[in-house]
C-alpha cells in the first residue's frame, strides 16, 4: 500500500515550548488514519504544520500524489490549491452569513476563477463560465444530497444546528476536490446518532471517492469504528502507531490515557 502522506522527524518549537518532538508517521493511500492523544499532546499542532498554518521548526512533510509536495515549505492557501489537502477546524469555521450553497460554491473558487479567466469571462456571461458554474452547483448539490441537507441549501449557514454545520464543513472541504482530507475533531459535540452518521459519511468518502482521511478525535466510537490505523501522541511524542486493536491494548497508550467511551 502506498503512503500518501509521510511525516518525517517533525519538530515544532514555540519559543521555549517544545510542542512536537521528533514525530514521524505515515498515512496510507485510501485509508482512514486517526491521530489521538490526551489534550495538549500536540495533535492540532501537527495538523497546523501539515496544512501550512505553522512552519515546522524541523522536519519534512511529504505529500505523494501525482507529484511530490513538501508541505512544510508551502503556505496555508497554496496547500489546498496545489497539493489538494483540505482541512476542517475544531471550532467550526463556516461563513455564517452566507447560505449553505454559497459556502460550497465559494470552496470551488479556484476552479471557477480559472473558468472565468479571472472574472473577465464572467463579466460577459460567457457560455463556458456559465457551464462551469452549473457544474459547481451540481457538485454542491451532490454533497448536500449525501448529507440530506438539500432543502436547507438556501439557509444561512450560521443558522443551522451544530451537527448540521459540522457536516456542511466537511462537504465544503470535499468541494475543493482534495486527495487528503484532514478533519480536526469532526465528532466533537455530536450525539451518538450523529456520530454514527459521521462514520458512514467518512467511510463513504473513503470507499467511493478513494480519498485518504487523517482525523484528530477523542470520540473512541469513531476512532475504533472506522480507522485503519491509529497514531497516538503524548506530550508531543509519538507513543504508538498501528491498527486500532493493537494500539488499544498498548500499555503505553493505556498509561497515557484511557480512552473514554
Amino acid at each position, binding site marked *: 500500500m502506498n503512503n500518501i502522506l509521510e511525516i518525517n522527524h517533525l519538530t515544532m518549537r*514555540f519559543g521555549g515550548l517544545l510542542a512536537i518532538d521528533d514525530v514521524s508517521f505515515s498515512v496510507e493511500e485510501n485509508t482512514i488514519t486517526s491521530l489521538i492523544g490526551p489534550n495538549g499532546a500536540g495533535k*492540532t499542532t501537527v495538523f*497546523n504544520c501539515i496544512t501550512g*498554518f505553522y512552519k515546522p521548526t524541523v522536519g519534512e512533510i511529504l505529500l505523494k500524489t501525482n507529484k511530490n509536495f513538501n508541505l512544510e515549505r508551502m503556505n496555508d492557501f497554496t496547500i489546498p490549491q496545489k497539493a489538494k489537502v483540505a482541512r476542517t*477546524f475544531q471550532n467550526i469555521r463556516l461563513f455564517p452569513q452566507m447560505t449553505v450553497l454559497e459556502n460550497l460554491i465559494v470552496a470551488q473558487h479556484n476552479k471557477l476563477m480559472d473558468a472565468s479567466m479571472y472574472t473577465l469571462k464572467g463579466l460577459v456571461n460567457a457560455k463556458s463560465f456559465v457551464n462551469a458554474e452549473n457544474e459547481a452547483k451540481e457538485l454542491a448539490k451532490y454533497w448536500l444530497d449525501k448529507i440530506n441537507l438539500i432543502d436547507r441549501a438556501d439557509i444561512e449557514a450560521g443558522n443551522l444546528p451544530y451537527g448540521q454545520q459540522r457536516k456542511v464543513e466537511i462537504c465544503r472541504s470535499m468541494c475543493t476536490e482534495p486527495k487528503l482530507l484532514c478533519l480536526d475533531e469532526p465528532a466533537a459535540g455530536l450525539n451518538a446518532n450523529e456520530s454514527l452518521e459521521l462514520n458512514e459519511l467518512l467511510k463513504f468518502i473513503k470507499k467511493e471517492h478513494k480519498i485518504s482521511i487523517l482525523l484528530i478525535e477523542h470520540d473512541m466510537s469513531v476512532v475504533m469504528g472506522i480507522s485503519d490505523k491509529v497514531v497516538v501522541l503524548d506530550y508531543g511524542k509519538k507513543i504508538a502507531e498501528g491498527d486500532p486493536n493493537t494500539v488499544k491494548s498498548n500499555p503505553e497508550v493505556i498509561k497515557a490515557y484511557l480512552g473514554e467511551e
Partner: protein
Amino acid sequence: MEYFLQQLINSLTLGSIYGLIAIGYTMVYGIIGMINFAHGDVFMIGSFVSLIAMVLLGVGTGIFLPFALLVVLIAAILITSVYGWTLERVAYRPLRGSFRLAALITALGASIFLQNFVQVTQGAKIKPIQPVIQGGFTFFENGALVVSLSYLQIFIIIITIVLLSIFSYLISKTPLGRSQRACEQDLTMARLLGINVDRTISTTFIIGAALASVAGMMFVLYYGVIDFFIGFLTGIKAFTAAVLGGIGSIPGAVIGGLLIGLIETFWSAYFTIEYKDVAVFGILVIVLIFRPYGILGKPEVEKV
C-alpha cells in the same frame, strides 16, 4: 551642540505630553481591544477645561501661582474624567461584543461630536493665553545660541514622572490594577471569577482621560494657544507613540511618546518643518507594516 541639546530638552517636554495621552490609547486597547478614536478629543476637552479654569481663576494675574495651578489641575482631571466615563458609558458599552466596524463608527462619531461640541460652544477661533510660567535656567550662552531649560519644562517633566509613578504603583500593586490585567487577558474568565468588569473598564477610561487632561493642561501652558481641532493631530501622534512602543504595553506608551517627541522635534529642527507631520504619519505606517506589535510587544501567533 547647543542647538542639539536644546532640541533634546524640547523633545522631552513634547514627549511627555504624547506619552500621557498614549497611555490612554494603550490601556483601552489592552482591555477591550478597540482603538478609542475619541481619546485625542478627550485630551482636547482637558485642554479647554484647563484654559477655562485658568481664566476663571485669573491665573497669571495676582493669584498665588502654585495654588492656582493645583486647582486647575484638579478641576481638569475631575471634569475630563467625567467626560471619559460618559464616553464609554454612552457610546462604547452598548456596542461591546458587537462587530469591529460598528465600534469604529461610533468612536468616529464620538470624535466628530466632541470636536463640534467644543466648536459650537466655544467658537471656532483659536484661544490664546498669556504665558503663565515664565523664566528658567540658561546654560551655555554662546552668542546667539542658548540652551535653556524653562521652569515650565521642568514642571511638565516632573508632573509626568510623578503621575507615572503613582500610576505604575496603581497598576502593579493594587486590586484595581490586578483586575485590569485580568480583564486584559480574558474578559469572560475575569467576569466569571467575580471581577466587576464594567467597573474595571470604566476605571480604565477614567484613568486614561485623567492622564490626557494633564497633558491638555501642559499643552495649554506650553503652547499658549489651543483650538477645537488639536485633538485630531495630537491624538494621532499619541496613537502612533502607543503603537511604536507596543500597543497594550504601558511602558511602551511612555517610551513611544518620548520617541515620537524626539522624532518630531529633530525632524523640524534639522529637516523641514512643513513635512513634520508626514514624518510622524510615516512612522505610523512603517511600524504597522513591519512591526505592528511595536518595540515592547510580542508577535501574536494566531491560534487556528
